[in-house]
């Protein structure tokens, strides 16, 4: 891997390479460049995950001509796809070095932080959701109880905006969660559960299920589960695969053409 990155930098295939390097014991994201090739020997793949694609997009927005190489797990590749279909990133200027992540017999060096889900405390089990629950398990609760459990989870929110800040596919210049026309400087952020539902709606057809939001949430809200649900609706109703489709999701509201198109065939359940 290190040899390949060195080669890319030397041959000018990439100007910089985004990977990880251990600094004072912390695995930190690091920008490797041709000026310091010896540095590349210290390139590591994990175990911490940072939104490298978001960082790459930020660099490209400042320096449009730069060619960037980066490490990408499966979630990272889905991110690059979403950023590409939303015209946030030209994949021509990105070279990807794949690294394994998901737990599988086929992938030996799996080191994703989701390999060992944390155990949840008793209070969360009684009143909320286990973050690793399946959507079916969540839906086995009666609507009233399900609503109460979601509200239990949402009311813990401290409005740090961390889920939005870390999200690799949150790229809007103006965010409706803090736009000054909607929320004046003196006002409090949107109420529970509006805050979470605004984000959930925006994640439909965009969330690539990387779980960075849940990782960054100080209140341990099962955000990944919530966004999985909205994405499942997008899949069921519009037959849209987020992260692998080559076109924008049906919710694209830019431009003059309405792109919403229902999935053909049988009736589908819209029960949320």
């Amino acid at each position: 891997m290190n040899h390949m990155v060195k080669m890319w930098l030397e041959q000018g295939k990439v100007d910089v390479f985004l990977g990880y390097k251990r600094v004072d014991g912390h695995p930190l994201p690091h920008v490797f460049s041709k000026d310091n090739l010896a540095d590349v020997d210290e390139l590591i793949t994990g175990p911490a995950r940072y939104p490298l694609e978001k960082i790459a997009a930020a660099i490209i927005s400042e320096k449009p001509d730069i060619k960037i190489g980066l490490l990408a797990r499966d979630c990272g590749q889905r991110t690059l796809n979403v950023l590409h279909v939303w015209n946030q990133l030209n994949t021509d200027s990105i070279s990807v070095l794949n690294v394994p992540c998901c737990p599988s017999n086929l992938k030996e060096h799996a080191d994703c932080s989701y390999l060992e889900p944390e155990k949840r405390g008793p209070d969360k089990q009684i009143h909320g959701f286990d973050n690793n629950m399946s959507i079916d398990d969540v839906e086995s609760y009666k609507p009233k109880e399900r609503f109460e459990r979601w509200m239990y989870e949402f009311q813990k929110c401290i409005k740090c905006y961390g889920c939005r800040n870390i999200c690799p596919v949150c790229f809007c210049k103006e965010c409706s969660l803090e736009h000054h026309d909607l929320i004046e400087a003196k006002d409090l952020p949107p109420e529970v559960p509006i805050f979470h539902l605004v984000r959930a709606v925006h994640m439909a057809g965009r969330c690539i299920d990387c779980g960075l939001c849940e990782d960054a949430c100080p209140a341990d809200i099962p955000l990944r589960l919530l966004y999985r649900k909205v994405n499942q609706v997008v899949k069921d109703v519009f037959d849209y695969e987020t992260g692998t489709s080559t076109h924008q999701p049906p919710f694209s509201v830019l431009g003059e053409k309405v792109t919403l198109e229902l999935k053909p065939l049988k009736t589908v359940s819209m029960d949320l």
Partner: protein
Amino acid sequence: MDYKFIPSVCSYCGTGCGVLFQVMDGKLMGTMPLKTHPVNEGKLCIKGWNLHEHVNSGNRLKHPLVRMNGHFRPATWEKAIEFASNRLKEIIGKYGPDSVGVLVSAKITNEENYLAQKFARACIGTNNVDHCARL
């Protein structure tokens, strides 16, 4: 292009969360939580997430200001300290040392906090010392 990630500690409160600054060509572009930091384990509050904004803010105070006739005017450090010490002496002389209180902050270091309480007790002569984390 020079892009660096600088690990640091959040300066907002006494908790000491680990943060990672994104610096591009010498300019602070963003703040992320330090994922492997033992204090915050990759989480931050809204203040920590926005550390870069106060560094780059146009409202940031970069020079000492002295209030004259209700308006703040830029001054040198010598002038500002002289002004403050004269006023403190005047107030202590007139009303006694307990008319002064010293508020310290989690944004400064342990050593600076120690110096501030020492200044209050030894120089001014009051035990009126408090800390922003207690307010």
